């Protein structure tokens, strides 16, 4: 028996509780089944790339904070690495270690947000979210000790970081390192073996490695398809060669493996932080002003530096014309590019899978629209 049905088109967003910001999807349904998805961007476009052309190299750091506002330290790090490569600045070791500690903590915070909101999109009434936000809060408080800001840090400078960490920071960092594994265990007890989460996320929005790589999808989504591709290992920057960590990989390529992978990556990040604390030695955190002036004038040329952001390959393309501000600044935003296959992932699934997949991709509208 066949029932005559007509497709129905719904605009989800830009004002919607679970689009993670101002994102809009024009979704066509046949009953509950999705038959077409068209993502529409640009509601948070602030023209960061144009703004950067009128700012000095140091001032652009503040623009990077506001791109992916849940992982601003990582954005700082990527941009600073690009400036350092363009200008040939030798960073101070203590500054680099602090940079790595900050960005790994930020990766944990970002993954916590991703997991929390993924489960929120699944319909859990905020409990996993508050659990993960409690841990994120500790990290944000540590950032406040580092640089006085919680979200928009602007902590890093060419050649190192803005200021040395106070003693208070090391105290709370050591207690965080002690407590965090237990907190992740608690979160996993609540979520990992939960039948509802399992049945909702398993086998939904499956990607194959070939598809993912062809669509330039990177980060946890690529690793969840079974490709151990992590720029921290494959193209090491800063001192990632000196620390020992694993790349968690899953081969299912569905939403559940994306969730599980993020949990495992948090543990790996904590391992890196632990080693950084062991390696760090007293010293200056950034070069003296004689070597790196306030107004940096890189030589003419261009460079592309990519780091492993919390959401994938975060690339910065800088073109210098020898003046005090970038001639062109382009951000390869992983959030935007990871959405390339959104349509392919969603067509054929049900309405309930839509926002779960969306949460599993883990985008940030600040970075999608810039």
């Amino acid at each position, binding site marked *: 028996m066949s029932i005559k049905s007509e497709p129905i088109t719904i605009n989800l967003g830009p004002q919607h509780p679970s689009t993670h910001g101002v994102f809009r999807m024009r979704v066509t349904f046949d009953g509950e089944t999705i038959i077409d998805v068209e993502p529409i961007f640009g509601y948070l476009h602030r023209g960061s790339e144009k703004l950067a052309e009128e700012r000095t190299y140091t001032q652009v750091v503040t623009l990077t904070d506001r791109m992916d506002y849940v992982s601003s330290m990582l954005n700082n790090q990527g941009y600073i690495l690009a400036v350092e490569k363009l200008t040939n600045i030798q960073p101070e070791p203590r500054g680099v270690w602090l940079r790595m500690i900050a960005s790994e903590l930020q990766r944990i915070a970002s993954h916590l947000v991703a997991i929390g909101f993924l489960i929120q999109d699944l319909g859990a009434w905020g409990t996993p979210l508050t659990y993960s936000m409690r841990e994120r809060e500790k990290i944000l408080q540590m950032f406040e000790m580092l640089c006085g800001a919680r979200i928009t840090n602007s902590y890093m400078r060419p050649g190192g970081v803005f200021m040395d960490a106070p003693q208070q920071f090391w105290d709370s960092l050591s207690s965080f390192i002690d407590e965090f594994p237990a907190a992740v265990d608690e979160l996993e007890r609540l979520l990992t073996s939960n039948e509802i989460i399992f049945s909702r996320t398993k086998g939904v929005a499956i990607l194959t490695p070939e598809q993912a790589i062809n669509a330039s999808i990177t980060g946890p989504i690529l690793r969840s398809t079974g490709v151990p591709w992590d720029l921290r290992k494959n193209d090491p920057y800063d001192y990632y060669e000196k620390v020992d960590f694993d790349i968690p990989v899953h*081969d299912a390529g569905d939403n559940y493996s994306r969730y599980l992978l993020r949990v495992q990556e948090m543990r790996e990040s904590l391992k890196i932080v632990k080693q950084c604390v062991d390696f760090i030695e007293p010293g200056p955190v950034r070069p003296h002003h004689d070597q790196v002036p306030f107004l940096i004038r890189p030589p003419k040329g261009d460079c592309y530096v990519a780091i492993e952001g919390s959401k994938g390959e975060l690339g910065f393309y800088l073109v210098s014309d020898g003046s005090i501000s970038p001639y062109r600044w382009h951000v390869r935003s992983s959030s935007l590019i990871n959405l390339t296959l959104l349509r392919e992932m969603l067509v054929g699934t049900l309405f309930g899978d839509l926002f779960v997949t969306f949460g599993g991709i883990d985008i940030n509208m600040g970075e999608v629209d810039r």
Partner: protein
Amino acid sequence: MFEFIYNILDFLFDLVIKDIKFESYILTGLTGIIIAFAVINGVLGGVLALIWGERRLLGRFQQRTGPNRWGPQGILTSTADAVKVMFKEDIVPEEADRYIFNVAPLLLVIPVFIIFSVIPFGISLYAVDINVSALFILAITSISGLSIICAAWASANRIAIFSALRSVAMLISYEIPVGLSLVGILLICESMSVMDIVIYQKIPFILIQPVAAIVFFLGSLAEINRTPFDLTEAESELAAGYQNDYSGMKWGLFYLGEFAAAIAAATVFSTLFLGGPNGPVLPGIFWLTIKVVGVLFFIIWIRASWPRFRIDQVLNLAWKGLFELTLVNIIVTSISVIIWTDADSNRLIFIGLANWIFAFPFVLLIFKMLKTSNYKNENKKSISYPIGSDNPKFIKEKI
């Protein structure tokens, strides 16, 4: 209760106005109004308390304080909210079908209050005792589906239509297991009157009819749209579902209706399965309140810790899980009812034992069958992409 209040009124009127003889229908009407007033206001007070309790409890579950500003422990928060809702602007969308749009909230609220008319709050403390009240409850609860589809249709909103369609699909699917789960009880009690069922419950029926209790609880969760079956107003998918275009007191009525429905479901469950007002020492109404609060706590606990199912899984659970369980329950119960016919107190124990031994294993079996199959090997990390398998050409040339 009716005769009690009637007699009091009669006595009072005789006392005050001696000369005029009142017609009995006036007294009947007055008695009815008093009872309705008491029940409705009791439920309304319960709703306010439930909203406060739910928010405080969710706060506890989520490691935050919850509302604590108005009154001690924030107990007046829901009162303040109710006052605020009353004075909010009432917006009707331009394309809405105004008549149906206005009627829909009432359609949701009124049936919920009607349910309480047949609930015994104590032994012989009830508004009406109709001899098919168990059937009456089942019939009345179905009206809420009509309300939701009216609201969605009238507000001319596509998301609301989605919500209404989900609601109807769920309601139809869960009516059947919920209705069938009561058959066992009716067979044992040989009566459809809730009062009779309460009187018969020397042992709470949750111990005699475990399968029916599970099915009825899950089914009533689905019918009142609570987590994990809150697909009708799935916040992360449909925003507010059928309530999207409602505002002011009309929205307040929906809110009221939902929470009153939660109380109604908890009350019906505790009446049918937990012994209702039966209990030692304390009067029946206290026992009923304690049981209802316990069930509501359980419902809130579930809401705080579980995500929601997808629509196909919800319907699967109803048709592939609960429906079969009710059939098993009916078969086991009817056989045991035939075997133990004499009405001594051991009869319930024998029937209960038969149910635990022959029917309950099916719960575990069916839930195991419905469970999503696990990953074959969690630690398997096969690398399916030939990463680093080839060398770049220029390195080859150098060698």
